[in-house]
């Protein structure tokens, strides 16, 4: 085993372990912290796959933005340190059967499919320069239209979340 393989299997084991802890942990705050470690592990995997830009985005947006937002909402809606109620067995059994069956089916399909890796001689070159040129190109398979649509979507989400979370006027007067 080379060093790279050891690193990959260690990091993926850690990612799966933390993801499992996210699901089974009964304290919601700890669950959010485990999510943070799992996302950091996925960012490390991106670094190993030579996509440094995506790894940086993963750390900035997921770890720095989404997890912090989730932790804030936990503080706003929960008593700290209180445990969630135990899961019902009638919920666990169907979910376990469903997810295990889906997992085995997908693994079976993947194992019997022959991926033609290494058929393309060209080198994978995801530098920030290449990504920027191709993302903002409007001919040659450029992605400028989805880019604009995403910017509109983010603006709409910003305004929408402010409108939803704002307190109604009468209620404000009452308090």
């Amino acid at each position, binding site marked *: 085993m080379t060093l790279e393989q050891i690193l990959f299997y260690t990091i993926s084991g850690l990612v799966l372990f933390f993801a499992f802890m996210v699901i089974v942990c009964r304290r919601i705050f700890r669950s959010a912290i485990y999510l943070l470690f799992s996302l950091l592990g996925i960012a490390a995997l991106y670094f190993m796959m030579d996509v440094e830009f995506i790894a940086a985005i993963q750390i900035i947006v997921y770890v720095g933005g989404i997890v912090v937002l*989730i932790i*804030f909402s936990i503080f706003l809606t929960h008593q700290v340190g209180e445990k969630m109620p135990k899961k019902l067995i009638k919920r666990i059994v169907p979910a376990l059967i469903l997810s295990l069956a889906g997992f085995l089916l997908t693994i079976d399909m993947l*194992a019997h499919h022959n991926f033609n890796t290494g058929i393309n001689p060209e080198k994978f070159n995801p530098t920030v320069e290449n990504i920027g040129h191709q993302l903002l190109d409007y001919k040659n398979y450029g992605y400028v239209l989805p880019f604009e649509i995403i910017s509109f979507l983010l603006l709409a989400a910003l305004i929408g979340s402010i409108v939803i979370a704002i307190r109604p006027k009468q209620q404000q007067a009452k308090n």
Partner: protein
Amino acid sequence: MEGIPLLHILILSTALFFIGIYGFFTRRNLITMLISIELILNSVNINFVAFNKYLYPQQLEGIFFNIFIIAIAAAEVSLAIAIIINLYRKFNTIDIEDTNTMKH
């Protein structure tokens, strides 16, 4: 990443996806369901990057899809948390069993 076959990365992302599915079905709390959705989206992102790197290295399509998925996930989380905070103000709980009316 030459020593690691594509299949192992795909197995990792499949496991992550179904862990997220399991959490989504068993949890009864809205925020933990949101966390499970984040796990599912991340597993899909790993797949996009792996396919782009191993099968079609001449274009960067997987990376663009990855960036768009991250942007949509950020928008989704901000909206969902606004809705959750609003629900908490009205019902004083965010358990899905208790918050079963849309109009108040």
